[in-house]
């Protein structure tokens, strides 16, 4: 396994957290992982992205120029990163917020109305977990157990009350991914 994932969207959409959850869950599955944010003078509403590498081997460069998995949470991120997605790669995008015209015929695509589904669940902040659920159901990795344990760890005691809604969102994404 050598998964090179870029997650991109607006600041505040939980992009960095989503990447961290994936990395931590994969680590719990015994993989080598790295997580690296694009950091800069960024603010809420600005762009945010991070790169997660999951591998069976030691990871040299943690920086990803050409991902094989791309999570897109807003339109500018689609325009910026889609040309870099490798052939046969996987695009997962929130089609409540992003318009995609199927211009690439050489990739797999999951379109999921993550923001709309999160609003239905009652908390727009969990759209990121819905996206992750869809990805994990497609890949079958990492396991639900590893993922939920990562979620619990990242939320910690301070945000433990957020676990339930995040788990619900994750399961919503899993379900959607299975039917997609």
């Amino acid at each position, binding site marked *: 396994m050598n998964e090179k994932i870029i997650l991109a969207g607006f600041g505040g959409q939980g992009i960095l957290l989503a990447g*961290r959850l994936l*990395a*931590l869950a994969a*680590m719990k599955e015994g993989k*080598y*992982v*790295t*997580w*690296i*944010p694009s*950091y*800069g*003078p960024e603010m809420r509403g600005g762009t945010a992205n991070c790169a997660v590498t999951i591998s069976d081997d*030691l*990871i*040299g*460069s*943690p*920086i990803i*120029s*050409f991902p094989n998995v791309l999570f897109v949470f807003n339109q500018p991120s689609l325009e910026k990163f889609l040309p870099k997605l490798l052939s046969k790669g996987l695009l997962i995008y929130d089609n409540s917020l992003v318009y995609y015209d199927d211009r690439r015929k050489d990739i797999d695509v999951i379109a999921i109305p993550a923001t709309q589904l999160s609003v239905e669940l009652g908390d727009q902040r969990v759209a990121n977990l819905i996206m992750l659920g869809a990805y994990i159901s497609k890949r079958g990795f990492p396991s639900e157990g590893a993922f939920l344990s990562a979620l619990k760890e990242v939320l910690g005691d301070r945000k433990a009350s957020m676990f339930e809604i995040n788990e619900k969102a994750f399961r919503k994404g899993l379900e959607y991914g299975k039917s997609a």
Partner: protein
Amino acid sequence: MAEKLLMKGNEVLAEAAVRAGCRFFFGYPITPQNEIPEYMSWRLPEVGGVYLQAESEVAAINMVFGAAGAGARVLTSSSGPGISLMQEGISYIAAAELPCVIINVARGGPGLGGILPAQSDYFQATKGGGHGDYHLIVLAPHDLQEAFDLTVLAFELADKYRNPVMIYVDGFLGQMMEPVEIRDPVDLSNIPPKPWAITGAKGRKRNLIKTLYLEGEMLEAHNFKLKKKYEEIAQNEVRYELYMMEDAEIAISAYGISARISKTAVKILREKGIKIGIIRPITLFPFPYNVYESFSDKLKYVLVVEMSMGQFVYDVDYGLKRKVPVDLLSHAGGIAPTYEEIVSCIMEKFGKGGN
């Protein structure tokens, strides 16, 4: 029991310092190292230590000077512009032969530059920075496990040689996360005593820590003493990694994040049949000149990869005794070299006839 955690580089450095027995931190905020003071601000009080945000980097390094003089394990951290402000104090600490650890999470310069990663403080770290004849011991980890382990080592070396030690990383290593085995805390009762420290002179002769020697002979003697110490450090403390160098005909030389990126390039180039490896210094002072010299008859080409406009390359060239052609692949200002461009750099030169 050692535990493995997914941690950010800056937090790894901070936790390692605490486990190495560091109980004092003085600093002033600057990106991209802010997670270090943030972490220390809650972590040090947990272990009975002191975290203090100084009013400037100038104040911070002089607080370090004081704590080091009192025999404490003490840390400060900053990035380029802040490290520049500390240079006067660093020169004084080196002159007074006091142990301390300074972390530079380097960003792009010169001037305010930017907050993105760079390796352009190499000259400053290894060739002085402040005034006078002195050296820091400079450690350059290339992944986070090494960052942890070298931080622990930094405190040991600082005490052993009574010399400031710099941990020199870049913003990528500071900001990235990867799994790290958090080693057990060092046994503080095993730290050798510091009879020279200023601890109150009750029942003993008073100690004096000073850097002023007005008489030429005294100052020269002090400088010769320091020189002898640096030679001893060069003798004992050189650390480096040879990566796939056994049968290498060409080499990449790089340190820190650039070396890590180069490892991916070397894997790809090896698959293409190129006999290539990496010479990676782990200590930038003392520099492994002898290692380069030992390869100077075996290599036909060396590519230096660094995130600066050509600083590290001088030491590589010097080590190779100018017997091997050396090229430089430079980036600056927050742009990292990609393994793809390293691969094509080498393939352009040596790819013909390869498979």
